[in-house]
């Protein structure tokens, strides 16, 4: 049964009232070549038992490989209590509730989330979350352009060392708004933003500089210098960070003397499982000065008529239902359920727990790096300080190595050749979270050793399984 409450007669009546022949006619302005058609490739419906069998079969065919891929989403341990609590009926909604009188629990949770994020980022304000890290950055870019009132510049400096999906998303969301994204090169030897390339834009009119930490290559940027540089040149500074790592790295609110103006990123490392790419959530923090330019919902703590503490949506005059076309917040829906999980996750881990996880990840990365470079033919590609993940140069195509490793149930990393062809075919981005044991890393090393050995022996590309 379709979940459409109208009968055919009612639909007909409504169409007659507005003078339309059919529902399809209402979509006339969408050109035919852009429509998806009648979904002819979709099979007939399945009943519950069939679908659960199908899904189990699919899950089995995926296996349970050892994951050494990071590249923006990370395989962290999530305590069982997190999702046990997050999926309780009281919390189980994707929406930020409007009705304060009926939603105190959820509103308080979001308020706590905001408090935790401001602490983690050392920023003054946090919103109640956005869709994901990439769209949060796109919103940060729009926000910077709005806030940069002095020059009204619509140009943004976007480093090539930023996550390629983030760059693509920002491009999609802002290119039709007359905003120009200028790509900043990275230094081929350190992997950091190329300061010489940046200096070309000194004294030029830009709204903001985007600063990733760590960048997509796992290289730490000189965030103090970059933040100072952007402010010296009249630009806002936007930090894009992995929130988990801010528990031990300097958070964006402390970069240079001033801190950044806007900090954003993806909240996935804070309690969201990988789940084939989502749902995750985006976070955004900013300075008090910019709060009215911030998108998204903000929950405030207040008192009611009797002086009792309560929580409510605040600063709603930024939002579209009040400001209409002048709204600074057109994204009000967020990933409320993921944020619920993240808040519970953070409160279970505590600042100390998050820091311990981040340290363990970094130690694991160093261990993995040692094990792999000890094979003699693998070396770090960049000389810049690596944190949490890193780029290795292999003696043969990363794609080939990954294919063989995958046959042995090891997801060996992320092949950079597609998004960074200038690095050649042999560059591999690897990560080893706290979920990877020393044995896991030994298995990876062993399989890698076999791949390299088989190449030396001139064996055929599809090697036999050794175990």
């Amino acid at each position, binding site marked *: 049964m379709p979940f459409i409450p109208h009968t055919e007669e009612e639909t007909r009546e409504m169409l007659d009232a507005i003078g339309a022949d059919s529902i399809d006619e209402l979509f006339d302005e969408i050109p035919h070549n852009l429509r998806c058609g009648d979904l002819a490739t979709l099979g007939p419906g399945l009943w519950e038992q069939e679908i659960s069998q199908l899904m189990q079969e699919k899950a089995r065919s995926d296996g349970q490989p050892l994951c050494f891929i990071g590249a923006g989403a990370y395989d962290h341990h999530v305590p069982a209590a997190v999702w046990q609590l997050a999926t309780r009926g009281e919390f189980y909604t994707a929406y930020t509730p409007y009705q304060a009188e009926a939603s105190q629990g959820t509103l308080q949770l979001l308020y706590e989330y905001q408090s935790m994020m401001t602490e983690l980022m050392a920023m003054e304000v946090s919103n109640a979350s956005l869709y994901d890290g990439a769209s949060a950055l796109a919103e940060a870019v729009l926000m910077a352009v709005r806030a940069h009132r002095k020059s009204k510049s619509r140009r943004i400096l976007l480093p090539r060392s930023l996550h390629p999906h983030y760059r693509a998303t920002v491009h999609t969301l802002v290119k039709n708004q007359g905003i120009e994204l200028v790509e900043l090169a990275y230094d081929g030897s350190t992997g950091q933003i190329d300061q010489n390339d940046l200096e070309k834009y000194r004294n030029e009119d830009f709204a903001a500089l985007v600063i990733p930490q760590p960048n997509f290559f796992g290289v730490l940027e000189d965030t103090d210098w970059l933040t100072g540089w952007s402010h010296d040149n009249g630009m806002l500074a936007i930090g894009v960070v992995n929130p988990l790592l801010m528990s031990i790295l300097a958070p964006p609110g402390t970069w240079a003397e001033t801190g950044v103006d806007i900090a954003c990123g993806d909240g996935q490392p804070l309690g969201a499982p990988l789940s084939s790419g989502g749902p995750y959530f985006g976070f955004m923090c900013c300075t008090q000065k910019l709060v009215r330019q911030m998108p998204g919902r903000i929950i405030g703590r207040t008192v009611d008529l009797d002086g009792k503490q309560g929580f409510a949506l605040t600063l709603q*005059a930024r939002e579209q239902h009040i400001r209409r076309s*002048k709204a600074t917040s057109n994204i009000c829906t967020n990933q409320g359920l993921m944020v619920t999980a993240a808040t519970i996750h953070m409160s279970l881990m505590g600042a100390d727990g998050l820091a311990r996880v981040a340290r363990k990840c970094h130690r694991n990365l160093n261990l993995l790096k040692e094990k792999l470079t000890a094979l003699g033919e693998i070396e770090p590609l960049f000389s810049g300080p690596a944190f949490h993940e890193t780029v290795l140069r292999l003696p043969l195509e990363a794609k080939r190595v990954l294919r063989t490793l995958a046959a042995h149930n090891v997801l060996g990393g992320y092949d950079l050749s597609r998004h960074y062809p200038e690095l050649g075919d042999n560059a591999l981005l690897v990560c080893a979270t706290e979920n990877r044991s020393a044995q896991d890393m030994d298995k990876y090393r062993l399989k890698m050793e076999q791949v390299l050995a088989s190449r030396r022996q001139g064996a055929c590309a599809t090697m036999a399984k050794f175990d």
Partner: protein
Amino acid sequence: MSNIPENLKYTKSHEWVKDEGDGTVSIGISDHAQELLGDLVFVELPEAGASLSAGSECAVVESVKAASDVYSPVDGDVVEVNEELADTPENINQAPYDAWIFKVKLSDPSQLDGLLDAQAYQTIAEDD
């Protein structure tokens, strides 16, 4: 009935204009406008030095229930903005004709003659 001083000029969009006699004017929002908006919580000021044309949006007044644009009644450059309002927007509720928002150096002083007088504005406010 709201207060509409005789010595000021007005616009249909509820700004008041005070001729400072030195080629500049002070601009704020009328008592009627602040009554409609309710308790103000924020004023977004124009940039000092900005050059405005009559009818252009140049500031925002935000109350607990609405946010409204303020339009420049005249052509000219912003010579001063009332920074005090950033911390005390309620001044506009308490004394709308003392709480000027910005001052403009007139490009064309004769534009003042084209603005509404108190009586004409009263008619508009009553129709609102």
